[in-house]
C-alpha cells in the first residue's frame, strides 16, 4: 500500500451528495461546461453551481481552465480510478483470504464439521 489514499475519501465525500453527483454527471455528459451553462440546465443558481464546481475542482474531481471570462470545467478520471483501484485490490485480497480461511477451517473440523470438499469455495 502506498498510503496515498487520502483522495479516495475526498472523492467519496464529494460523491456522497446527490447535487454534486448530478453536477459531475452533467459535466461528464457534456464533456466540458461552465457555471453559466450548467445553471441553465439545472434547477440551481449560477452562484451555487460556481461554488460547487470550485469545491469539486479543489477535491481533484474536476479540472478548471479559464475560457475568456468564464471558467470551464471537465471531469478528471484519476481520483475515481484510484478509488476503484483500492476497492478492487482490497476486495480481491479478501476474496482470496476468505477462500483460504474456508479451506483452513475445513482442515480443522472438530466436533461436527466433517467437510467432504474442503477447497470448494462456491457450492
Amino acid at each position, binding site marked *: 500500500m502506498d498510503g496515498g489514499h487520502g483522495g479516495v475519501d475526498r472523492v*467519496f465525500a464529494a460523491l456522497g451528495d446527490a447535487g454534486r453527483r448530478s453536477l459531475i454527471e452533467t459535466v461528464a455528459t457534456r464533456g466540458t461546461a461552465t457555471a453559466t451553462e450548467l445553471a441553465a440546465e439545472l434547477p440551481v443558481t449560477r452562484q451555487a453551481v460556481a461554488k460547487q464546481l470550485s469545491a469539486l475542482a479543489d477535491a481533484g474531481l474536476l479540472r478548471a481552465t479559464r475560457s475568456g471570462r468564464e471558467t470551464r470545467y471537465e471531469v478528471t478520471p484519476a481520483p475515481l480510478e484510484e478509488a476503484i483501484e483500492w476497492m478492487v485490490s482490497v476486495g480481491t485480497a*479478501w476474496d482470496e*483470504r*476468505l477462500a483460504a*480461511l474456508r479451506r483452513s477451517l475445513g482442515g480443522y473440523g472438530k466436533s461436527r*464439521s466433517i467437510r467432504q470438499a474442503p477447497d470448494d469455495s462456491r457450492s
Partner: protein
Amino acid sequence: MEVEREIVVPETPDEVWEALTEPERLEEWFASEAELDARPGGEGVFRWGDGDERRVVVRELEEERRLVLDWDDGGTVAIELEECEDGTRVRVVETSPEIAPALELRALSLEPSAAEPPTPGGKTAPPDAALAWTAATAA
C-alpha cells in the same frame, strides 16, 4: 470508503474465532507470518511472501463475535461472526485509510460548521488507539 465481504462457513463461531486470533492459524489463511496479541490494545505484525509487512493494533475484541484491527496506515478491518443455521456468517468490512477527514469535508464545503474541530470517536479512528500505537512504537 469500504469494502465488504461475507461468507458462511459450516464451523461454529468458536472454531472460526481461533482461526482469526491464533497466529499459527492466521498463517494458514491471512498472512505468511503472523504475530498477534489478541486482546484490546494488543499489537500484531503480519508479513507476506512479497515482502509486504503491516502492523496492527486491536481496537475492539469481543470473543467469538467481533474483532476490529487498526492498520498502521490508518485503515481498519472489522471481522464479525454470527452464528446462523448453516454454521457461522463471517462478515469483513475494510475501511480505507483516512487522512484528516474533517479537513477534506471542509475543503468541499460540505459542512456549514467548518470551524468546528474534528470530533473524536464516531467513525474516525479513536485517539486512544492512535496514542497507544505511538507510545508502543516509541518505546
